[in-house]
């Protein structure tokens, strides 16, 4: 095999995005994937006999306009799915449906219904104001290059002129706050508040009262600037990105787990696969969790002492488990018509319930009343299940990576807790189960290489965001090892199916000619 100009480790969506940009710039790119298919957490995975489920993401905004057009993803078969609403399930069947511009349900106060569209618009405007920061490599704070000055200038403009004086004050007031206080100031309806709070905390080891949860919500809302959230089916996105890489001349090699990043004289010189094969390249881009990239693939001995120790202090403990069910037919949810099942369903009665569920995971316990996000992706992509059959996908929080007694012992009880919670709303569900799969955070770590099973390769907390993500010394995609770059969710702007870390990384690599 010819020596590639660049090796991208990990064919998750950020790795593919980065590889596509590099390949389009004329580099000979080789993407190495440990699993037998590309896509990482976003890839569909087989379940039972003849079923597939769409990996970890469930309800996500489409890729941003910039990536879609720059990589010509539509030409490669990408199409954003149908927008869906969020339905908060109520034990008494007083379900609440939340759309972009409307909220409706039994018992909803008129004031809340009236306040929702304006509130959402305001926070979308806040997210828009953060766009220059999110869509560019995080700027340096000292000795700014010209591009960084532009980022700050645009950010300042968007905050001061884009938002206007009043809104900017409001933004500065809330941006460091917790979502619990902000929502209690604004709404009365527990179901509505819980639904927003879920978006702020799901995937993080945070409860609604954790400081910084307004920011995490803004990061989620940012995705919706370029299109409403849809149900992820795991196929189209990954296939389109793969084609984009290959159309630009990039190569993809699956079942090729990387054991080490080779470093010679302080410079990346290639990778060694687990079977011993070495592939040389002076440019190595890691889509792997930064903690694993540095601690295992590079190794602390080849890093400087303080940096190697900071790596171990990156916070990011997975607290969400995944339950996949193959069903012999469409399940029935009490008080919900079949037509509504294509939406995103939430089991989270109130913010207090979410906070209480979070409390358990702080002490190594699974919540006995987990918070659930439920989708039926086969409604949107019938190819996932045989005719008339369906797959149901559940993200269940809070289930800690470091469960007392370990996940081997605790897995079945946790799965039962989720099923019992589901049964409160869909009593006949269990009888329809053909196959099931439960992924604890430990399974997510083992299957996707995400340290401690954290979706975002590190908590999206303020102290690990922007120019501090993933850590001081590697926050601008370059690392202390010359020729080694990061491009994954562990980098700015963080996790989610945005492709932005991959795009920003590629820009940095190309801008600098591969030098840090």
């Amino acid at each position, binding site marked *: 095999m010819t020596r590639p100009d660049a090796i991208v480790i990990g064919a998750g969506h950020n790795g593919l995005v980065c590889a596509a940009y590099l390949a389009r710039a004329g580099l000979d790119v080789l993407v190495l994937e440990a699993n037998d298919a590309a896509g990482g957490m976003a890839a569909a995975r087989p379940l039972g006999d003849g079923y597939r489920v769409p990996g970890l993401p469930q309800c996500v905004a489409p890729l941003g306009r910039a990536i879609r057009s720059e990589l010509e993803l539509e030409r490669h078969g990408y199409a954003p799915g149908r927008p869906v609403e969020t339905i908060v399930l109520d034990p008494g069947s007083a379900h609440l449906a939340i759309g972009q511009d409307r909220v409706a349900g039994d018992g909803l106060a008129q004031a809340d219904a009236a306040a929702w569209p304006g509130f959402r618009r305001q926070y979308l405007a806040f997210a828009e104001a953060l766009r220059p920061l999110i869509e560019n490599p995080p700027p340096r704070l000292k000795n700014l290059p010209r591009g960084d000055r532009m980022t700050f200038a645009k950010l300042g403009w968007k905050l001061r002129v884009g938002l206007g004086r009043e809104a900017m004050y409001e933004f500065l007031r809330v941006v460091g706050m917790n979502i619990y206080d902000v929502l209690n100031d604004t709404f009365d309806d527990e179901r509505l508040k819980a639904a927003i709070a879920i978006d702020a905390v799901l995937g993080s080891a945070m409860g609604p009262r954790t400081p910084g949860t307004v920011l995490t919500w803004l990061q989620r809302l940012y995705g919706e600037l370029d299109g409403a959230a849809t149900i992820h089916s795991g196929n189209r996105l990954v296939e389109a990105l793969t084609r984009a890489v290959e159309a630009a001349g990039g190569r993809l090699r699956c079942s090729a787990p990387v054991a080490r990043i080779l*470093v010679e004289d*302080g410079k990346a010189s290639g990778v060694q696969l687990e079977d011993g094969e070495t592939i040389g390249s002076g440019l190595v881009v890691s889509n792997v969790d930064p903690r694993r990239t540095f601690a295992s693939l590079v190794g*602390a*001995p*080849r890093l*400087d*002492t303080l940096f*190697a120790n900071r790596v*171990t202090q990156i916070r990011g403990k997975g607290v969400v488990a995944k339950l996949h069910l193959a069903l012999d037919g469409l399940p029935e949810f009490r008080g919900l018509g079949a037509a509504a099942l294509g939406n995103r369903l939430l089991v989270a009665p109130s913010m207090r319930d979410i906070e209480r569920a979070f409390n358990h995971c702080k002490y190594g316990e699974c919540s006995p009343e987990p918070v659930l996000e439920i989708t039926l992706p086969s409604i949107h992509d019938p190819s996932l299940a045989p005719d008339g059959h369906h797959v149901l996908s559940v993200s269940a929080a809070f289930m800690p990576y470091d469960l007392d007694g370990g996940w081997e012992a605790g897995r079945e009880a946790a799965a039962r807790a989720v099923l019992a919670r589901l049964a409160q709303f869909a009593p006949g569900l269990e009888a329809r189960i053909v196959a099931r799969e439960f992924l604890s955070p430990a399974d997510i770590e083992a299957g996707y290489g995400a340290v401690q099973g954290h979706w975002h390769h590190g908590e999206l907390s303020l102290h690990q965001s922007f120019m501090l993500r993933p850590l001081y*010394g590697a926050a601008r995609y370059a690392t202390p090892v010359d020729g080694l770059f990061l491009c994954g969710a562990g980098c700015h702007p963080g996790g989610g199916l945005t492709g932005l870390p991959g795009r920003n990384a590629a820009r940095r690599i190309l801008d600098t000619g591969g030098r840090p």
Partner: protein
Amino acid sequence: MNIAREHFRQPLGRTPFHERMVALTTSEHWATWNGYKVPRIVDKLSIEYFAVRSGCAVMDLTPMEKYRIEGRDARAYLDRLVVRDLAKLRPGRVTYVAWCNDEGKLIDDGTLFQLDESRYRLCSQHHQLDWLLMSARGFDVGITVETHDVAALAVQGPTSYSVLSEAGIACLGDLKPFDVTRSDCAGIPLTVSRTGYTGDLGYELWMEPGDAEAVWDAIFAVRGRYDVHAMGLNALEMVRIEAGFVMPGFDFNTAEATVRNDHDRSPYEVGLGWVVNLDKGHFCGRKALAAEKARPPRRRLTKLVVDGNRPVGEAFVYAGRNGKQVGEVRCTTWSPILKANLALADIEFINGKLPEPLWARFDYQRELKWHTAWAECHAQSKPFYVPAHRSLTPPARY
């Protein structure tokens, strides 16, 4: 519960040589070193100074920080820790090392002894356990503090070889500078290295604390035939400046104890560039040091001979008399053997060069009245005092 709670009555530790030191001291001039009570001056400074330079001086080194580093990865660990190339270090040898943080700023310096294939001893001025443990991530290496478990004695001066041989320590004649070997003193096992901080011929003896007094007594038993004196920290300060040795924490701020930006120093900036080997492979701070080396030098800790015989003490240094202030004196001494006024000064370079001429402005007191004076300073590149007898093997017998 019965816990010994009397330790607070003796806040300063006593080394195993303490009783012997007490018996000898006339000045009762004590200092704290690393939590131990040690003499600043035992009897008379001039006697102690001249014992090092023309006789034999004995100094209690026990408070010096000592670490045992051992295990499968011990060599790889040390290679990553220190800025020096260790390729030539082998069992029975000692080398001078320094280590830096990620930014290439000095944390400390010390001597590294290779005791056998996978066992080392690192001696340093300051407590380093936290840094050594942080550096151990990813290595199979054991790190043990042995400061309080090993008694150490420096025996220094032109007649130290004769004194120790007379005291019954065999095979010293073959010991080259920076050699270390197992030996014994009248049946007491000990480790001897030909090392020191005085710039003179000298040895360091390492032994079990329980054997300390017997070894001391064997050495002092040759008094009468040889001039042997116990020495304190003040004489050491004089001779180490003459020898051009730097003192971390005094001549420069150690990096991990520095708060203010740019107040720490790199090896290049304190004249330890010769220790740094950028080609030896990865070590902590290498990238930063390579970048620094590619730039013109910003400053150097510079050896100065100051005109006149008044000790300059604390002083600013200027580029020319009444010129621009370019530096500060870090330490200073009158050298009796060179009849010269010596100083180490931290000097900012101008356009990558040492400014000339250099003048020190200093204040001094005469009968309580303060005066200001100027003295021209002459920069030296070599250590002030390097006697030929220091490196002879075998050393001269007296």
